[in-house]
């Protein structure tokens, strides 16, 4: 199928994609485009990438048959691609290694990144620590609050996390801020974008690095399915990198339905969601043309999702294209549905999934009921849920996460200080 060979030379997926950038970024983008073209098919580069994935990330990640869940639901068999078992706990690390390897070859000692949920930030901080690169991570101040464990992880890894106070204080604003940094420091700085959005070549490059997920599945699934491939592949879509990674190798396998799950938040018609494909219109944001959530004046609207990683008003341009040509379907899962799936996986399969991945799981559980037990659904379990347990605890009214140190109370064994006493701690 010809669409698997997109984008074209200028980064277009049909009417989407491209490089809508200010002149100040043109040089940086050209430099990156040339570097990626040089290494994209370079055997030495690819061999190192594979070696890193095998020995540092722990690939291939396994596929797990969620047999108990499948039995209880009574429909299709659900399989989970365990990207949550990667080093740092999500698929994000695959792409970051690829881009950091490029940065090293391009002689850029300073790395910037933006992050929503923090998984991309943690992955970037991790690789920078290993490769000895300076690391600055921009993060909306709302996300800094929601994802404080990941902020601390980045700090431990030596990264500087910069809270962004502008706009909605979430991922899109962190992206704007990272672009500004890049403009000012293009000489020594490589911008590692964490999703399949941004100006060309990012959507293509990130997809290529993440396609390892789907390529592994193409080999692994036949072992479960008597040589066959799954009837459906389901993945959550914010920017859409884990979905693109698992979808892309399946595009030519037309019998396999590709289903992207957007964050429906409080409902697709509530105005509080992040479903860019289902409720957005074509527009230009962050360097590419794609579906964006916008108001009647073309201003980008604020989004809502229980999952910081899906809380983005745009989507990768290749998803916009796949939606238009009908090769992939896009559906919505609400916060409540995602949380129910989160708890289900915890209690029935012993897996604490990321809230992002819980969206995909929730849809798979709905879909399975409409299918036969001899059919199969492959879910990309893109990340683990450690980072989200604070959010879930808050929503459940649980108190355990309030560590003594977070209450300003003394830890066991430490001497109380005057300020601790004045805060009236009742440990």
């Amino acid at each position, binding site marked *: 199928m010809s669409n698997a060979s997109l984008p074209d030379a200028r980064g277009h997926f049909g009417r989407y994609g*491209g490089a809508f*950038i*200010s002149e100040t970024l043109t040089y940086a983008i050209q430099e990156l485009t040339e570097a990626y073209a040089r290494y994209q098919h370079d055997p030495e580069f690819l061999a190192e990438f594979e070696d890193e994935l095998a020995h540092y990330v722990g690939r291939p990640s396994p596929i797990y048959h969620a047999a108990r869940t499948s039995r209880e639901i009574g429909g299709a068999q659900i399989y989970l691609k365990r990207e949550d078992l990667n080093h740092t706990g999500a698929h994000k690390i695959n792409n970051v290694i690829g881009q950091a390897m490029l940065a090293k070859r391009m002689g850029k000692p300073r790395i910037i990144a933006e992050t929503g949920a923090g998984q991309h930030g943690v992955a970037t901080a991790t690789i920078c620590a290993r490769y000895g690169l300076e690391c600055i991570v921009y993060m909306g101040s709302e996300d800094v609050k929601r994802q404080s464990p990941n902020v601390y992880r980045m700090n431990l890894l030596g990264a500087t996390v910069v809270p962004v106070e502008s706009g909605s204080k979430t991922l899109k604003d962190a992206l704007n801020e990272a672009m500004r940094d890049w403009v000012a420091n293009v000489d020594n700085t490589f911008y590692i974008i964490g999703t399949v959005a941004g100006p060309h070549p990012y959507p293509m490059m990130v997809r290529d690095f993440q396609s390892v997920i789907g390529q592994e599945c193409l080999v692994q699934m036949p072992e479960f399915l008597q040589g066959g491939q799954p009837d459906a592949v389901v993945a959550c879509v914010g920017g859409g990198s884990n979905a693109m990674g698992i979808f892309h190798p399946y595009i030519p396998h037309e019998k396999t339905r590709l289903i992207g799950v957007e964050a429906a938040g409080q409902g697709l018609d509530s105005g509080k969601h992040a479903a860019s494909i289902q409720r957005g219109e074509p527009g230009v944001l962050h360097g590419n043309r794609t579906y964006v959530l916008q108001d009647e004046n*073309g*201003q980008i609207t604020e989004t809502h999702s229980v999952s910081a990683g899906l809380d983005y008003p745009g989507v990768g341009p290749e998803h916009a294209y796949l939606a238009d040509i009908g090769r992939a379907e896009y559906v919505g899962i609400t916060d409540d549905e995602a949380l129910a799936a989160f708890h289900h996986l915890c209690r029935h399969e012993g897996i604490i999934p990321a809230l992002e991945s819980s969206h995909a799981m929730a849809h798979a559980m709905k879909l399975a009921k409409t299918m036969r037990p001899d059919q199969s659904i492959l879910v990309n379990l893109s990340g683990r849920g450690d980072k989200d347990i604070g959010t879930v605890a808050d929503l459940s009214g649980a108190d355990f996460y309030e560590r003594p140190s977070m209450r300003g109370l003394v830890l066991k064994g430490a001497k109380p200080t005057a300020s601790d006493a004045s805060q009236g701690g009742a440990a």
Partner: protein
Amino acid sequence: MSRIQTTLDALKAKGRKALIPYVTAGFPYPDITPALMHAMVAAGADVIELGVPFSDPSADGPVIQAAGDRALAAGIGLVQVLAMVREFRQRDAHTPVVLMGYANPVECYDLRHGTGSTGSAFVRDAAAAGVDGVLIVDYPPEECQDFAAALRAASMDLIFLLAPTSTPSRMDEVGRLATGYVYYVSLKGVTGSGALDVAAVQQAVPRIRAHVTVPVGVGFGIRDAASAQAVGQVADAVVIGSKIIQLIDGQPRDQVAPTAAAFLREIRAALDAIQAA
């Protein structure tokens, strides 16, 4: 011939430098812009760049972003900006107006008001309102062929940015499409940032002239009469934005126009002194 070209040609013939102030439409008060534009013209502005507020102005610094946010909160979109230009035109048929903004509001305008290709509805309505040129920060030459054609058909100018990182082949590319003037971003960074490196600008502008036939304006980082004069030594036009926004921010309604005008008169005098010198 466009109003921008006529204006810049006339200035050049007299050996004068063009002064191009930038203000965000609808800032600091949603209805003040036409009066502010008239005051700036009276103080010596030759062309006015009117910023179209956008929610995600990734090439602007905090000053212009905050001004845009305030205008957005007051409900200023492209429809309102065009109305401001229409109002300005009722009393000023000469001073060129350039809209400066980002692609998404323009494309959204086409989506809501148009029937045809990119730029059609926007260009039609902007031309009717009296807009002379457009600078879309995130429309590089590769991505704006249709838009450029629509503007050309309406005799409007397409202004492009050039940056310290622009290569000679890039300057050629921009030179082929640019009309009106090109806007040289004098430093690596966003609007309002950093210190102006006058020596670097003085080296860069002649390089640009080797590739670009339209006049060269320089902006980003020009904050006072001295820096304007230094840049004016080599450039055809001097663009000033963030500093004006800072000066009028927080002024009572009746002080906005006088404050901007007083500042521009200083700049005007400094630019005119180049000719005298």
